[in-house]
């Protein structure tokens, strides 16, 4: 028997902290949320305001496709990764991380409009959940990643440099322009 929780059992069978693979739980969360929604003082935005129930099969298929994509970057073609991430995002409409990575893939290809659209769509999924699904990075990290991608893609789409507020007096050791963090933050979506 697998005994996986490192605090709740004395002899956990798996090394802490594990690989961060998302668990399968949204199916019961969404069904319970749907069942109790009429008795909540405030219906939370998660799971489309508790109106959508995700099946276990869809949740598992989406998780497995995503996990294959992110662990197999070295062997997959970009188109294969994109197909897996698109499938994950479509099959589980509550997870934002596949959209954030689709934004990055689009950005790499120079498709800035698509990158901005994916980044915005990712943020619209991150906020209702208010928690990272791929917990290899924190919620704040994921949101920051998506916001920065949105900013850079949007600016490039307008013919502007990807990052604002380049210093006119400072460059890095390698000659790259330095940018003011507060000035960047002020322009984030």
């Amino acid at each position: 028997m697998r005994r996986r929780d490192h605090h709740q059992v004395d002899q956990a069978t798996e090394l802490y902290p594990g690989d961060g693979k998302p668990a399968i739980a949204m199916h019961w969360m969404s069904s319970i949320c749907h069942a109790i929604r009429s008795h909540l003082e405030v219906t939370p935005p998660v799971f489309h305001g508790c109106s959508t129930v995700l099946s276990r099969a869809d949740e598992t298929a989406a998780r497995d496709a995503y996990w294959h994509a992110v662990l197999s970057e070295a062997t997959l073609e970009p188109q294969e990764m994109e197909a897996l991430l698109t499938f994950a995002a479509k099959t589980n409409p509550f997870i934002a991380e596949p959209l954030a990575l689709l934004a990055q893939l689009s950005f790499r290809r120079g498709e800035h409009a698509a990158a901005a659209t994916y980044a915005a769509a990712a943020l619209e999924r991150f906020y209702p959940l208010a928690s990272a699904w791929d917990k290899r990075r924190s919620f704040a990290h994921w949101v920051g990643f998506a916001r920065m991608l949105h900013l850079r893609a949007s600016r490039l789409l307008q013919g502007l440099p990807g990052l604002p507020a380049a210093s006119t007096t400072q460059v890095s050791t390698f000659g790259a322009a330095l940018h003011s963090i507060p000035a960047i933050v002020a322009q984030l979506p």
Partner: protein
Amino acid sequence: MYVGPASSTRATCAPPATRSLNPECAIDRAASERVHVCWARAQSGDLFRFFLYDATNVADRSSLRAIVGEPAELLTWRFGTVARGELLNLAEAIQLDAPPPSMTSNPADLVSVSHRLDNSTTLTNADVAKILIVTIADYLEQMVETNGWCVPPRV
């Protein structure tokens, strides 16, 4: 996950369905949820192995009541002492993917549930909903394969 408008901070936040890309309200919701979960854990457990306040100790309960108020303390006490797996057949929903039964429409209708201190107790539909939404928020924060809500059965 944003679970309710219990604080003045949350009352100033945009509606939950906002399409704004600004994260401030999302961060606020996340922080609020963590506060809820933190206090919910204070007197666990039915599942959780640790406690901050002794659910059997009047003085401990009073201390927590002084911090969070009477209704919230009672809710956290119930969260940590009732068998949550029985609520809407939560255990079957987790283990067997079984759809939960429908709730009756009256928020004040009572539901019987096992209780680790009092053998059994009754909860209103509204309290059942509160306990379950915090349960969802709680697990969303720890939803990785190395946590063991599904294997072995724990709810």
